[in-house]
């Protein structure tokens, strides 16, 4: 009797400990980001207040209006054009990387050929070159080709940044589809090309979308290369633009927070949509040889 009571009590204690640990974990994961988001809606004077103001007295969208140049106070940082640049560069490089990646991933998933493992490893090793190390020769080459400070210059670089990992993911998604399906279609008179578009591509679609989101976010978030290959509003992206705020003598914390929110939101939404497929792609492509 006493034993069972004791074990029930210890079970209860374990449950509480588990709950507490999870709560702490989520706190550490979420609070830093949430604090930035909250600060984006507060006036700079409240952020700078000493002693600190813990409960916000006023929340408004003024900071967002300011960084986009609406309203009386102009900040002088062209966030609007950074946003458009980021969007154009990330979208274009994602689409191109996906086309190249689907071809490459299909090749790895469906064919046996010489040097297969070597080529795959080679692609991964090229991806491992640190961005800042790669930026030096690319900067020198691009300045000769007139590609520095153009969107095209950055798009080309981001395509190569995304191709290896897109191939890794898409290879995994195609291998999850039984080869017998497309073979049956071919027996029924489809060409391999038709079998691909009618059978395999629709089945791998959500996985390919997940790979696309990953590629988009890589380009959307990239800083090391963008910071050296862009100069002006013609091509500067949001992560590079964020540093504009610190270049001044006084840091505009509220403005920076607002800009941070603008960079985060697309990332959060996209991650939320594809998270399931992304995890499946990462593990499947890696574990099954």
């Amino acid at each position, binding site marked *: 009797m006493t034993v069972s009571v004791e074990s029930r009590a210890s079970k209860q204690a374990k449950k509480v400990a588990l709950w507490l640990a999870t709560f702490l974990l989520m706190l550490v994961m979420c609070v830093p980001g949430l604090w930035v988001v909250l600060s984006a809606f507060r006036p700079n004077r409240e952020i700078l207040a000493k002693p600190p103001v813990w409960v916000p007295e006023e929340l408004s969208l003024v900071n967002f209006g300011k960084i986009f140049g609406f309203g009386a106070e102009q900040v002088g940082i062209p966030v609007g054009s950074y946003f458009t640049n980021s969007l154009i560069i990330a979208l274009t490089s994602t689409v191109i990387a996906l086309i190249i990646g689907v071809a490459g991933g299909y*090749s790895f998933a469906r064919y046996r050929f010489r040097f297969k493992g070597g080529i795959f490893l080679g692609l991964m090793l090229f*991806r*491992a070159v*640190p961005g800042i190390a790669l930026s030096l020769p690319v900067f020198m080459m691009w300045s000769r080709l007139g590609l520095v400070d153009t969107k095209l210059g950055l798009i080309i670089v981001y395509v190569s940044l995304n191709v290896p*990992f897109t191939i890794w993911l898409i290879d995994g998604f195609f291998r999850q589809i039984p080869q017998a399906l497309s073979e049956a279609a071919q027996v029924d008179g489809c060409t391999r090309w038709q079998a691909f578009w009618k059978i395999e591509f629709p089945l791998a679609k959500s996985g390919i979308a997940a790979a696309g989101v990953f590629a988009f976010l890589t380009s959307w978030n990239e800083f*090391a290369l963008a910071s050296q290959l862009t100069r002006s509003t013609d091509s500067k992206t949001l992560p590079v633009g964020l540093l504009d705020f610190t270049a001044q003598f006084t840091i505009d914390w509220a403005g920076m927070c607002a800009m941070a929110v603008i960079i*985060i939101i697309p990332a959060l939404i996209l991650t939320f949509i594809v998270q399931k497929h992304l995890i499946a792609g990462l593990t499947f492509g890696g574990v099954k040889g």
Partner: protein
Amino acid sequence: MIRALTTRRTEMAPFLLLLPAIATMLFVVALPLVFSLWTSLTPYKLTKPDTLYDFIWFRNYIRIFADWDFWEAFLRTIAFLTVAINLEFALGLGIALLINKITWGQRGLRTIMMFPMMFSPILVGFQFKFLFNDHIGVVNNALQSLGLTDQAIPWLVDANLAMFSITLAEVWMSTSVFAILLLAGLFAMPRDPLEAARVDGCNPWQVFRHITLPFLMPFAYIAMAIRSLDVARAYDLVAVMTDGGPAGRTELLWTLIARTGYDEAKMGQANAMAYISTILSVLFTWHFYRKLVAARRYMGGAE
């Protein structure tokens, strides 16, 4: 005859499909690396274009190897990566085991865990620069309001604390890669061996050490391999948080490359350093990729 032609065509198909990928990588990565190697053997300065054709053999390499600043940044980078990645693995494993135990809201928790992974590193850097600011940062404000300290702690100004803060930001950003993949491993784990071991009288530690952990290792190596592809994104963190300061005490190899190449315009010397950092990253990725392949073979190529 016809058969020979068609087999040749199917032999060519995979290479044709891979051609765009290979061409892109050759043009945007391999070619610049060749150019970079040449540049590292010249005293090239952006301000003096002619110096690009002035071949000086390995003088740049000899110069950086004799430079204590370089070694300091190099060793700091190695130490930083060792500490950060081990911490990320340990914490990620802990988090995965924890969430695996929870019966409700697992999917919600997993989604929340993915968010730091998708944050721009530059944003993570800014976020912690904001939180750790000595005047207005929420960390100091909280510590002072709670009466734990009456002085502002110079998180990003003191050399040791700054390195600590950068490591913390890095761990915050990358632990989820490990947590998510190890959790996926735990979900995929067959129940039978666990129960058999328990019936045979293994204690929880033995079960974990001899059954769970070996099963999880391939997943850990995937995480390591993915992580090793862009270890250099710590550059973004340092660039926004301290920019290598105070007095070069948080300088990593990557920030040193940027400073030498762009700020001091010594492209030749910077390329020599860049080459060393590239070799470092490639070896790192290669190592974990091989471990992954070996672990996969150990598991019989399939689950």
